[in-house]
């Protein structure tokens, strides 16, 4: 059984998000790019499965411009066997559907029992590609997975739902699993590991190869905006404590919209 892991390169969560002058996109100048943290869990789970003797090969699959190779190399350094990189300007600005279609195309002819991925990418926070891909491939899906058990060709996945409950979902392979935090502790890809990973095979595919492009988009980002600048913190020290507390609770609801 082989495993495919979907990997996306995203800005480090610490990045400051600035917009281009015409608000058409965010400014990528000075951004530090990393492998999406949820995808790290997916890679780790795939490697652990392989190390447990339940999978033969781990292939990582990514889509994006040239720089995405770094994210794939990170996954290879963690221990994946090979990589497929879908890289084509025709895919610039592809939406979730176009990306899912491209990934489905890239997986044509690839033998897999399990597809692992992160439940969401922390850039667009869309959380849609995994489910769309599962639908396009016609396979079972389990999202927000915090535990996986594989027996033969049966996969049991624990899906986190509200209130700390877990749905245990069972399916026959092939199955797509979207990982959440707590699934495992991803290993660290050291720089020597990343450099050695350059010797591992990385196959490039174009939009034509995978049969998708931004022309397949079903949505369009019409514009970007930034939230109101964070106000200086409000510290309440004068007056009755009860009043101050009431004021903060009110602000949490009305101003911060956090309650």
């Amino acid at each position: 059984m082989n495993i495919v892991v979907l990997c996306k390169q995203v800005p480090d969560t610490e990045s400051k998000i600035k917009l281009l002058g015409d608000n058409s996109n965010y400014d990528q100048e000075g951004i530090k790019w990393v492998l999406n943290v949820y995808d790290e869990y997916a890679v780790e789970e795939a490697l652990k499965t392989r190390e447990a003797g339940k999978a033969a090969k781990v292939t990582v699959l990514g889509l994006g411009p040239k720089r995405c190779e770094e994210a794939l190399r990170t996954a290879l350094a963690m221990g994946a066997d090979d990589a497929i990189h879908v890289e084509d300007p025709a895919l610039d600005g592809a939406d979730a559907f176009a990306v899912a279609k491209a990934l489905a195309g890239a997986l044509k002819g690839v033998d897999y029992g399990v597809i692992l991925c992160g439940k969401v990418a922390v850039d667009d926070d869309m959380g849609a590609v995994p489910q769309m891909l599962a639908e396009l491939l016609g396979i079972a899906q389990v999202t927000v997975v915090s535990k996986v058990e594989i027996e033969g060709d049966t996969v049991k996945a624990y899906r986190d739902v509200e209130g700390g409950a877990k749905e245990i979902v069972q399916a026959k392979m092939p199955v797509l699993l979207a990982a959440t935090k707590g699934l495992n502790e991803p290993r660290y890809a050291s720089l020597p590991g990343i450099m050695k990973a350059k010797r591992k095979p990385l196959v490039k595919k174009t939009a034509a190869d995978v049969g998708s492009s931004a022309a397949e988009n079903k949505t369009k980002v019409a514009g970007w905006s930034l939230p109101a600048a964070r106000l200086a913190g409000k510290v309440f020290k004068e007056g009755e404590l009860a009043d101050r507390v009431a004021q903060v609770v009110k602000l949490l609801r009305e101003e911060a919209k956090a309650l």
Partner: protein
Amino acid sequence: MSNVLVFAELRGAEPKKVSFEMLSAAKQIAAATGGQVIAAAIGDGLSGLGAKLGAYGATKVFVANGVAKYSTEGFAHILAGLIKQENPAVVLLGATAQGKDLAPRLAAKLGVGLASDIVGFRMDGNKFVAKRPVFAGKAFTEVTFLAAPAIATVRPNVLPIGETNGAAAAEAVLAADLGGPKAQIIEIVAGVSKRLDLTEADRIVSGGRGIKDKTNFKILEELADVIGASVGASRAAVDAGYADVSMQVGQTGKTVNPTLYVACGISGAIQHLAGMRTSKVIVAINKDPEAPIFQVADYGIIGDLFEAVPLMTAEAKKLLA
């Protein structure tokens, strides 16, 4: 081609609050598209949904009864059938555990677009334009749709609930045919604790050495219960034996990024900030006005946490009642 379909998510046989929020939004959308609000619900032992959803504006409710368990593929199968039949312009689902899982699969099945976790929308003529946060709320995008229907998942607790004076909606039966899903829920394990793991929690109440005693964590738990939060701790509190190490937030503990982080009796040393500073809204309660936590707090209360926290619990209870 102008109706708005709301998939009313249920808890047991009752609609969740987000379902009413979506119906209220759908009413506004339908007003612009010139259509009706229709709803769909899938569950077991359902009754009276026509009245319950109708009150918030649904004019027709499609009910698939006798489906005891959620199934991604099964629900997508039922809804896709309904959508093909009804041709709505917009479909809304809750950005809940279920809705987030279901909506993209449904969109792909129909070959249409999706905007997830929307926090607002506007109508451009009769076109639905969704507003959604990206980069964990550091920016927003407006999404337009190139195919019909437009599907969106709506973040709970954000959109207002409108008037509840609607008439009972007509109920129609949907076939409870799941279409042979490949994956099935074989068991549901209730949470050991009702609280989410800190790393996943949307709200956290956290205590530091100012708590002074293990038993005092109770007052934090009471606040957490009211606002639906998980309980965390600083390393100092863990060291002092007030809290378990699994609750530790910070450089060597857990990194959290909830919407709301309430720091009680935590001074805010950098090693703690490293684990929680990306929280969207930080509230600090501390009697030391010099505590560095106030430098990162959005709202600070200088005072005794043993008085302030119970007051906050009472206030929140009033507000959320």
